């Protein structure tokens, strides 16, 4: 920019720097391992050149827009053909979802409805049918978007994820999984294999709500999930999580603790929602301002709490 001294800013475009409406798919080698060991071998052989994909609903748009650039020699490793990662299993009080399970299967699975209905409610409002038919649970989490709608339900459900690399398996609570926008605790060579969700207790109720700039097929401006357990008319346990209001999906523990031992009357609900909203510091972006996000976060938490209350009485 020419400043008052007449200095000039000269900028030269690099590959990826120009505006190009849609970029070409890169040259690549496609792998579709059938088993986990095969997959781990491919990661070992190709190292950083290997990129794990599942539904491809994020990787392809990223290539088209130039957000992701790949050097020649890319190896795409598609995990959707691995049977072990494609199952929804129940183990006593634990729901175990393979990372390659599509959102549609989450939505239609009786097990998910029984174990974690709030997850199904969130998934129902995600993307379009076509995208839900290919996008996966694992993909939604691994992309680590602050707006990932599966995250708040998993956070309030005390879910964990299983990560695997050559050295073996690690279990990480979802609450510890995200480290920033697009970042997680996963290390190079590591992959997510499963999401484990404890069954919701009979005395618990959970709710999910989201707000977007349109009703359908929309990235959340704010999403909220709440799980409440009541005993003797007072709140015994509480989980409150929010999406799109921080660098990662977050739990608002202060607001959770506030509820402990209290009845869910209007005053408590209102105060709790206020605490949840003031605990987060969202950003302003194209979709919404920080102020609106905080404002609506409060409303959503309040409405989730009221939905749980209604459900429990």
């Amino acid at each position, binding site marked *: 920019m020419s400043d008052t001294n007449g200095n000039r800013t000269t900028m030269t475009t690099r590959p990826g720097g120009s505006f190009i409406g849609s970029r070409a798919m890169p040259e690549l080698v*496609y792998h*579709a391992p059938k088993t986990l060991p095969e997959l781990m071998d491919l990661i070992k052989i190709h190292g950083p050149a290997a990129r794990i994909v599942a539904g491809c609903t994020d990787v392809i748009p990223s290539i088209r827009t130039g957000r992701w650039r790949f050097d020649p020699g890319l190896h795409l490793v598609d995990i959707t053909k691995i049977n072990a990662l494609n199952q929804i299993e129940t183990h006593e009080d634990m729901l175990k979802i393979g990372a390659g399970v599509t959102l549609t299967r989450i939505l239609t699975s009786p097990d998910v409805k029984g174990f974690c209905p709030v997850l199904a409610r969130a998934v129902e409002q995600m993307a379009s049918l076509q995208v839900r038919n290919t996008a996966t649970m694992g993909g939604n989490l691994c992309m680590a978007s602050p707006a990932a709608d599966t995250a708040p339900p998993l956070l309030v459900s005390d879910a964990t994820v299983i990560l695997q690399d050559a050295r073996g398996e690690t279990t990480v609570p979802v609450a510890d999984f995200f480290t920033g926008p697009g970042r997680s605790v996963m290390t190079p060579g590591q992959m997510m294999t499963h999401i484990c969700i404890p069954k919701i207790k009979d005395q618990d109720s959970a709710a999910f709500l989201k707000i977007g700039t349109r009703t359908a097929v929309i990235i959340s401006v704010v999403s909220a999930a709440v799980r409440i357990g009541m005993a003797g008319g007072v709140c015994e346990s509480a989980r409150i999580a929010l999406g799109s209001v921080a660098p990662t999906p977050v739990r608002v523990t202060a607001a959770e603790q506030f509820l402990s031992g209290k009845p869910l009357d209007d005053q408590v609900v209102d105060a709790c929602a206020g605490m949840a909203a003031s605990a987060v510091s969202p950003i302003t972006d194209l979709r919404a301002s920080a102020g609106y996000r905080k404002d609506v976060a409060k409303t959503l938490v309040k409405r989730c709490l009221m939905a749980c209350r209604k459900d429990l009485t």
Partner: protein
Amino acid sequence: MKIPLTFVLNNQETTLMIDPGQTLLEVLRGQGGMTSVHRSCEEGECGACTVLLDDEPVNACLVLAASVQGASVMTSEGLVKDGTPHPLMKAFTDELGIQCGFCTPGMLMNAYALIRKAGDTELTDAVIRKTLEGNLCRCTGYVNIVKSVKTAQKLKMAGEWW
């Protein structure tokens, strides 16, 4: 380097030579010759390239062609039997659920899967609208599309279907 892709395209086993980086959209329109599969956003936002992959609607632009090895893919060309329009197509024509026609083939595939799955349950406006949320249309305001889907389901219930 090109690789062979063998899959069932509109009920016919087909082998095409593809680049591993090609999307299903590129292969269907290119090597596959299925030009009803329309290309617009290439990012899974508009639904114009909706096809059925193992009976489920997907955006062909977001599917790597290499990943459909052995799978079944159906485009709206596959609905046509001996040159005769499918009853679903007839319903879209009769109700004028089409204006510029660009979103139509994708809309048809999504609607086809919906009607088939619905069985004997009568589809409500709300269910139809929710199901078609990923198929953007800028011409019709969706009103006649919803009507077309309902009419099509009636044709199916009357036994006119394949």
